């Protein structure tokens, strides 16, 4: 039998390594209904827990009567704060250094706050039990508007903090104040503004919204009394963090806590934190000795487990008359709801808001973040963005447009004039970051050319003239956004959560037959890690991706990691994969040298094995090497072929992109039409272009939702007005625009494979692109800034305010 030797291209193709549009491994099970999500789990004897929630936003809890509930058929028990106090769990720590009530302890601070937990034989009986719990409330005055939070006569929200003039993040200046955080050169910035030829100042609000993954937050807790072990299956983006927190809170030793995150139906930041549902399910399981499932419904999800944004940013830019920026000053008033439950690294109470200088070469800047409590749900999480980065990007990208308007300059020209230039990288920003790499001019120029930017502006000018002549009632906006993200948290010298350094990890085992398995500290929620991680390994050690299994989410088997959020999987876990792979390749090289009877240094790597330099026919493939590694290793070498890497990144990564949105708005109805949306992303090295494109589509759709209507809105007494998918805008296929994607490639110089992360870029860059398009449409009518979200009604209102309906 003769077989043709495969060509190098064939060998390369067989690996399906980095850069290839490999089809997803996960899809095999998902398309057949064989996914394994939390609510699919059914353990023997499993009970079901459900919450009694507060109808009031702020009230004293006078009395809880569970007696009728306990008579409901199927109801086994009811937990209240009193019971939780017995195990010291009525309150729990948040990831942001605050504490949060697990169940209402004396009062409630937001509508739908957890008041009691009913445990029953099934979900129907639990719901019956919830109905039968009687709670007597005494209403208290409500604060919904963060701007009223620190009024002298504002009601005290957090009585537990009475007399505490200092919190985790420094001094508190008012009973409803959480922290003030500032960064930059105040004196220098003040001086820049004093000397400025041109200044703009605008309150730019990023409204409250919610990540709302299609699968809500849920868990099954199972305590084994005999073994003293706790197993928690849950929708956890960060399973190891949950294990450590569960161990610390429950006092069960960490090796006896098993946390399992199976398939997760989307996360978008919603599933990073620890919620009362998890604690109650765990306590209920310890008490009953049976597994307890807790599944949020959609209303509970939208109104209690986290929110995102609610940042109100007074943004000032100083510039010269010819459009060179000379200073940036931002004051952000931020609403964290009843408890500060952000998922920020400990030293960054406002996340990475200091990326607010964006893509521009600001000589000096100063930012202040003032955080307050209100009677709204606690948070806020990073909804498909690195921590507080989308807020920062929105402030600077709206700010630059407002400056352009004031200068009567084209917004794209203003950006090109102020970009950090390619040769300035690595670039030290005025607020303390070292941007790793970038080529902003190339990206924006490519984007402008792709959409025919000059022609669009000419068309807009003609339309504006026609509008003024009364020939049309439609206005046209061109929204330009150029964002720089900061992702991949992060270096242990400044990034930790509750003291846990933010490294990530990978363990690879190559089996004797040359197939492999890799276990990870990260956790996919739809990003396709099982597909893309295998591609990295395939390229690094020459084993076909199809022969590599990726396992995530089981804390018993996976190496410790901080999980998947803030676009950190590729920058941190992806780097750990490359480093672990390289350890394996190093060992493989020694084995190959022994097999080929040459010195290691005489070998070179070639796609899927090692060959002797200058003697191409003397070659050992990884498959053979793997067999030898176990069964005939060189004398003195330990058998086996596996490696583990814990990767502590030297820096964050800084993906960027240029987005352009073209929109038409009817001023009489407020109805908009997205004519075109072009997104150019530079995420460094591209692992799987198909998956990148999918991520960009999804992120843009979420950005579209947020900018054009999606919000968590409250009335003046703290009732949630957008608590279901009836009112909370999630676009369908009909509203969602068509997306055009493009890219440039500027690898990260400090990342082993040069990748930067992409999942969140489209949300960060997309929101300002949409908002700038709406604002650009109205700008020629004397409008400077219209607040998001830009739904039909608000567009109509904007037109009305501008006198267009008279």
């Amino acid at each position, binding site marked *: 039998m003769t077989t043709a030797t495969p060509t190098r291209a064939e060998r390369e193709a067989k690996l399906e390594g980095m850069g290839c549009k490999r089809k997803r491994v996960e899809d095999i099970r998902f398309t057949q*209904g064989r996914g394994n999500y939390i609510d699919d789990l059914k353990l023997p004897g499993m009970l079901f827990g459900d919450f009694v929630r507060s109808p009031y936003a702020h009230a004293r809890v006078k009395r809880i009567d569970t007696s009728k509930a306990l008579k409901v058929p199927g109801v*086994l028990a009811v937990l209240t704060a009193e019971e939780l106090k017995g195990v010291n769990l009525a309150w729990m720590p948040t990831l942001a250094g605050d504490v949060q009530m697990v169940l209402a302890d004396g009062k409630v601070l937001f509508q739908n706050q957890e008041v009691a937990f009913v445990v029953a*034989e099934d979900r129907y009986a639990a719901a019956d039990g919830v109905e039968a719990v009687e709670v007597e409330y005494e209403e208290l005055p409500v604060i919904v508007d963060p701007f009223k939070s620190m009024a002298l006569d504002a009601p005290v929200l957090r009585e537990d903090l009475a007399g505490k003039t200092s919190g985790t993040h420094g001094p508190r200046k008012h009973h409803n104040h959480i922290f003030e955080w500032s960064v930059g050169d105040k004196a220098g910035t003040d001086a820049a503004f004093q000397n400025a030829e041109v200044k703009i100042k605008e309150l730019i609000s990023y409204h409250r919204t919610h990540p709302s993954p*299609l699968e809500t937050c849920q868990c099954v807790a199972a305590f084994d009394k005999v073994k003293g072990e706790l197993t928690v299956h849950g929708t956890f983006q960060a399973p190891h963090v949950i294990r450590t927190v569960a161990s610390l809170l429950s006092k069960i030793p960490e090796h006896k806590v098993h946390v399992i995150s199976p398939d997760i139906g989307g996360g978008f930041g919603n599933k990073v934190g620890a919620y009362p549902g998890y604690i109650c399910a765990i306590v209920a399981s310890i008490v009953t000795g049976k597994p307890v499932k807790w599944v949020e419904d959609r209303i509970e999800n939208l109104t209690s487990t986290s929110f995102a944004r609610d940042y109100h940013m007074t943004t000032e830019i100083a510039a010269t008359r010819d459009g060179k920026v000379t200073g940036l000053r931002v004051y952000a008033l931020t609403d964290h709801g009843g408890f500060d439950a952000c998922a920020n690294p400990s030293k960054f109470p406002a996340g990475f808001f200091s990326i607010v200088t964006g893509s521009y070469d600001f000589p000096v800047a100063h930012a202040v973040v003032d955080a307050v409590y209100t009677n709204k749900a606690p948070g806020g999480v990073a909804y498909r963005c690195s921590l507080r980065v989308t807020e920062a990007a929105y402030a600077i990208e709206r700010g630059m447009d407002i400056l352009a308007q004031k200068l009567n300059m084209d917004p794209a020209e203003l950006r090109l004039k102020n970009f950090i230039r390619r040769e300035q990288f690595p670039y030290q920003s005025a607020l303390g970051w070292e941007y790793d790499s970038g080529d902003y001019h190339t990206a924006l120029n490519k984007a402008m050319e792709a959409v025919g930017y000059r022609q669009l502006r000419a068309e807009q000018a003609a339309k504006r003239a026609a509008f003024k002549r009364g020939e049309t009632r439609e206005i046209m906006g061109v929204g330009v956004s150029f964002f720089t993200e900061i992702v991949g948290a992060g270096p242990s010298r400044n990034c930790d959560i509750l003291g846990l350094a933010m490294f990530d990890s990978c363990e690879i085992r190559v089996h004797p037959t040359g197939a492999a398995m890799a276990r990870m500290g990260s956790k996919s929620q739809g990003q396709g890690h099982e597909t893309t991680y295998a591609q990295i390994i395939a390229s690094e050690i020459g084993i076909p991706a199809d022969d590599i299994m990726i396992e995530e989410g089981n804390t018993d088997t996976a190496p410790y990691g901080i999980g998947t959020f803030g676009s950190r999987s590729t920058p941190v876990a992806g780097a750990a994969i490359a480093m672990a792979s390289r350890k394996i390749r190093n060992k493989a090289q020694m084995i190959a040298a022994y097999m080929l009877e040459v010195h290691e240094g005489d070998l070179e790597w070639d796609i899927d094995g090692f060959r002797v330099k200058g003697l191409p026919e003397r070659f050992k493939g990884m498959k053979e090497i793997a067999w030898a590694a176990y069964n005939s290793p060189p004398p003195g070498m330990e058998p086996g072929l596996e490696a583990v890497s814990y990767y502590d990144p030297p820096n964050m990564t800084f993906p960027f992109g240029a987005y352009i949105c073209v929109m038409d708005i009817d001023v009489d109805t407020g109805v908009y039409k997205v004519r075109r949306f072009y997104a150019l992303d530079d995420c460094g090295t591209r692992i799987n272009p198909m998956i990148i494109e999918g991520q960009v589509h999804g992120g843009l759709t979420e950005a579209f939702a947020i900018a054009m209507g999606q919000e968590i809105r409250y009335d003046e007494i703290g009732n949630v007005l957008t608590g279901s998918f009836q009112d909370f805008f999630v676009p369908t296929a009909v509203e969602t625009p068509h997306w055009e994607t493009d890219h440039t490639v500027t690898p990260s110089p400090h990342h082993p494979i040069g990748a930067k992360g992409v999942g969140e870029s489209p949300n960060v860059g997309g929101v300002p692109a949409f908002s700038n398009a709406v604002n650009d449409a109205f700008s020629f009518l004397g409008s400077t800034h219209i607040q998001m979200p830009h739904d039909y009604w608000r567009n109509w209102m904007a037109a009305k305010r501008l006198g267009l309906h008279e």
Partner: protein
Amino acid sequence: MKASENVGENAMAKAHLKMKVNGREVEGLVEPRRLLIHFLREDLALTGAHIGCDTTHCGACTVDLDGKSVKSCTMFAVQAEGASITTIEGMANADGSLHPLQEGFRMEHGLQCGFCTPGMILRAHRLLQENPNPSEEEIRFGISGNLCRCTGYQNIVKAIQYAAAKMGGAACKEAAE
């Protein structure tokens, strides 16, 4: 924790139920208020259809019932008495090969977290029964009762077009033979 003495006293009268699911006769004993989605997922262990919103908006629970797309979270199990239901578990061909829609969703990257996928495929299946060669606009309108938070729908549209082309091709081939 206060304990109750009501263990096992769940006394609501139950209804006997018969239906055909994925070509198989099934029966059950359910409370009249039991939702079809819970009957499918918990009693029949067909966990492919999911629950995403509880208010009939998201379509993750979509199944095919007597030739119509139905959101099984908005129907009582007893209302499906005598019906014939297809779920995602019944979509693959008898030989185990995938339905063109299942194949199309993978080939065109029409899914990410996979949570909406079973409902989306079932809806697309009915859409293609009603309109074998839909335009992009018709597809977008046709799946507008099903929400996806991950993909932005663009690749879902392509996946359905892939299946339509493949199924149309197969039909033409059969006709020619």
